[in-house]
């Protein structure tokens, strides 16, 4: 989708955004992109700002809003409540939308972390990914590269700053306490076997009941988006496979998709067929691992081994063509790295035949077990309205009845032409999320079955120039990743490398929803919810 952002007056911004949600029904905030805009033309001064991408959940229409930040020196030393961490500094600021869309809470903190834009009215302006003592804001174009690090522990503040304009229009800050004096706080992670990587959840407990969860991210923040700004387009591709390594194909698909859209590349049918099949094979791979990991996190090692056994068969099919087990490196701008293996069709057919009855076996071993049901039902509940407000996309959102599948809503490649169903349930809990994954595996098999016999002849690669340049403009392209919508925003200024590229990670909004899902639940339910929601941390941290 080529973006043509709307612009609002600074004072009207919050009101207009609320109108967009309430009157025009743009109730799904896809992402907020922070950017250090360049000076272009006479009218556009450039500077720090944000682009908001919104979706109407009924008509699936999308729109974007651009908001430039204003600058002011913070604090006049009079009316601030004496904390003044940032008093005297020149700060860029934008009104917050975190009370309109709840997902904006973490998204705005991300923008603050990378660009130093503060959001007026956001109650908790702390860094999200980087250490508290990190020097500067790395995504600004004038930031001086520095990769030194310390081995001392980070000293984290126990308060969040809230910025506001006082009655004279001066920028002020005040502290909001994160914990009460007698709160019992437990850190889950960053080195914890059940958080699927290095996620850290700071959990406030009342006895065994969860009172509040503060996610701490960035333990695997690899700054891929910043590295992209210095790379040529073909070079950027290598890094996406290493995000959610279980959705390597889809991630790369979104990236080549946005570049191809920008360049206006027309793909052959053969490429589209192969890409669709590969995406679905990858989804099977990921969902199989998901099914096994849910079992393992709840203590069922046997079920873990069953689906990991079958995952190897899926990997075999992909490996013969791509040469990689986990990291595939298969798509490239304008097509594929190489044609499919001569045995690919035959192998995939055998796989589909083998896998279909096996899915029932996972249910027999684990999914239909009474213990599993007792453990997952009513665990981590979230209603449809909250799911949309927290932007819980993917199987987790579909378990609450939100029809959010990008493959249906914004069909790409062949998803508009094959017959398949969007799996939704209305149980709104972890058991529903598990069952949606199971049902989606059947749908993936259906899609593959319809396509595998009909792969048309043609080129597997549309020849591109050795130097790839994307014309000026802004695009957003998203695919249905393994655990939600995965999108890439590209701002090109006509160069060999992108001016700004940003991903919409699948897991960030899921992590942001933990707090709402788990308040009042038992502490042990945190692990069960975490397992059933399917998060992969490198995808969140990027």
């Amino acid at each position, binding site marked *: 989708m080529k973006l043509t952002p709307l612009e609002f007056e600074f004072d009207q911004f919050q009101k207009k955004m609320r109108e967009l949600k309430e009157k025009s029904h743009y109730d799904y905030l896809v992402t907020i992109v922070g950017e250090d805009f360049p000076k272009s033309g006479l009218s556009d001064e450039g500077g720090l700002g944000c682009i908001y991408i919104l979706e109407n959940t009924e008509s699936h229409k999308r729109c974007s809003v651009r908001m430039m930040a204003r600058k002011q020196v913070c604090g006049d030393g009079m009316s601030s409540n004496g904390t003044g961490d940032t008093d005297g500094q020149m700060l860029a600021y934008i009104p917050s939308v975190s009370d309109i869309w709840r997902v904006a809470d973490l998204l705005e903190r991300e923008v603050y972390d990378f660009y130093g834009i503060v959001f007026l009215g956001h109650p908790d302006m702390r860094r999200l990914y980087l250490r508290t003592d990190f020097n500067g804001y790395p995504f600004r174009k004038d930031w001086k590269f520095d*990769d030194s690090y310390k081995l001392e522990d980070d000293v984290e503040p126990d308060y969040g700053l809230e910025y506001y304009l006082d009655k004279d229009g001066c920028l002020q800050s005040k502290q909001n306490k994160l914990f009460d004096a007698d709160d019992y706080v437990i850190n889950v992670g960053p*080195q914890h076997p059940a958080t699927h990587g290095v996620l850290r959840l700071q959990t406030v407990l009342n006895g065994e009941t969860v009172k509040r969860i503060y996610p701490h991210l960035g*333990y695997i923040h*690899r700054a891929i988006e910043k590295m992209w700004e210095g790379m040529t387009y073909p070079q950027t591709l290598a890094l996406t496979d290493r995000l959610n390594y279980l959705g390597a194909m889809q991630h790369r698909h979104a990236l080549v998709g946005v570049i191809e859209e920008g360049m206006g590349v027309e793909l052959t049918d053969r490429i589209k067929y192969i890409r669709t099949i590969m995406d679905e094979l990858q989804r099977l791979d990921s969902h199989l691992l998901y099914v096994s990991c849910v079992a393992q996190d709840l203590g069922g090692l046997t079920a873990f081994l069953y689906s990991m056994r079958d995952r190897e068969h899926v990997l075999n099919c992909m490996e013969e063509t791509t040469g990689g087990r*986990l990291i595939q490196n298969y798509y490239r701008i304008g097509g594929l790295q190489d044609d499919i293996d001569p045995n690919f069709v035959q192998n995939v057919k055998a796989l589909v035949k083998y896998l279909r009855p096996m899915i029932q076996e996972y249910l027999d071993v684990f999914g239909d077990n009474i213990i599993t049901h007792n453990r997952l039902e009513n665990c981590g509940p979230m209603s449809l309205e909250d799911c949309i407000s927290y932007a819980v996309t993917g199987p987790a959102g579909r378990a609450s009845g939100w029809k959010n599948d990008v493959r249906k809503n914004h069909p790409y490649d062949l998803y508009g032409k094959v017959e398949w169903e969007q799996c939704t349930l209305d149980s709104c809990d972890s058991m529903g999320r598990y069952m949606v994954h199971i049902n989606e595996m059947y749908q993936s098999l259906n899609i593959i079955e319809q396509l595998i016999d009909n792969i048309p002849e043609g080129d597997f690669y549309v020849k591109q120039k050795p130097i790839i340049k994307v014309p000026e403009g802004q695009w957003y392209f998203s695919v249905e990743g393994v655990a939600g919508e995965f999108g890439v925003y590209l701002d090109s200024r006509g160069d060999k490398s992108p001016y700004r590229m940003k991903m919409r990670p699948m897991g960030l909004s899921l992590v942001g929803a933990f707090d709402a899902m788990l308040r009042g639940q038992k502490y042990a339910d945190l692990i069960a919810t975490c397992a059933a929601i399917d998060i992969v*941390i*490198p995808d969140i941290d990027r």
Partner: protein
Amino acid sequence: MEVRKPHIKSIPYEEWNDNASLEKIIDELHEGGVGVVTGSLDQLINWGRSNSLWSLTFATSCCGIEFMACGCSRYDFARFGFEVTRNSPRQADLIMCAGTITHKMAPALKRLYDQMAEPKYVVAVGGCAISGGPFKSSYHVVKGIEEIVPVDVFVPGCPPRPEAIMYGMMQLQRKVKIEKFFGGANHKQTKEERELGVSNEELTFRAKLGDHRREPIVVTDVPQEFVDELKKEKEDAAV
């Protein structure tokens, strides 16, 4: 009595890579002589320890999934006695560092390593743990965990295949088999190592060759058109 060459049933000694460095360790151990009683006890202990290496699950990214695959049906490293993974560093023999270490994670890795009981080992799995890998030019990635902890075995790959991970683990077994507990252990962190967080080998290497981790990546095999365009741009800028 002497320290024996490490023997692994399935692969003949000559077919292993990196025999030279193991022989160097053996020679060093021979210098003080080996007692009959203590030497035999060492052999017994090493036989037991090398066949039950318990790793700390420390999977930060992609390589961790391949580590999981190692433990599952097809590769099944329970055959070698590696299947017990511990979630507490106090109970683990080695850190299997599978994945990128970022600046925010570095203090945690250091602390986990310090918490482990001697003798302890580190296996660096994958390009990121070895040198920063594809993320070498990032501002938030440690250029190889050897800057923080001493590493015993490197397993290259992005990510390494399960076969490679198992080969690396078997190399570690060989290293464990030539240890000496009685009359001078040869695998203990020295004071210098503890303070600097760098192995002695790495220190001498740096003194000789400079800090190889901070060098820029040189790309050859660039399309001629690309080079021409860059040249032209430079010329334009100069004008």
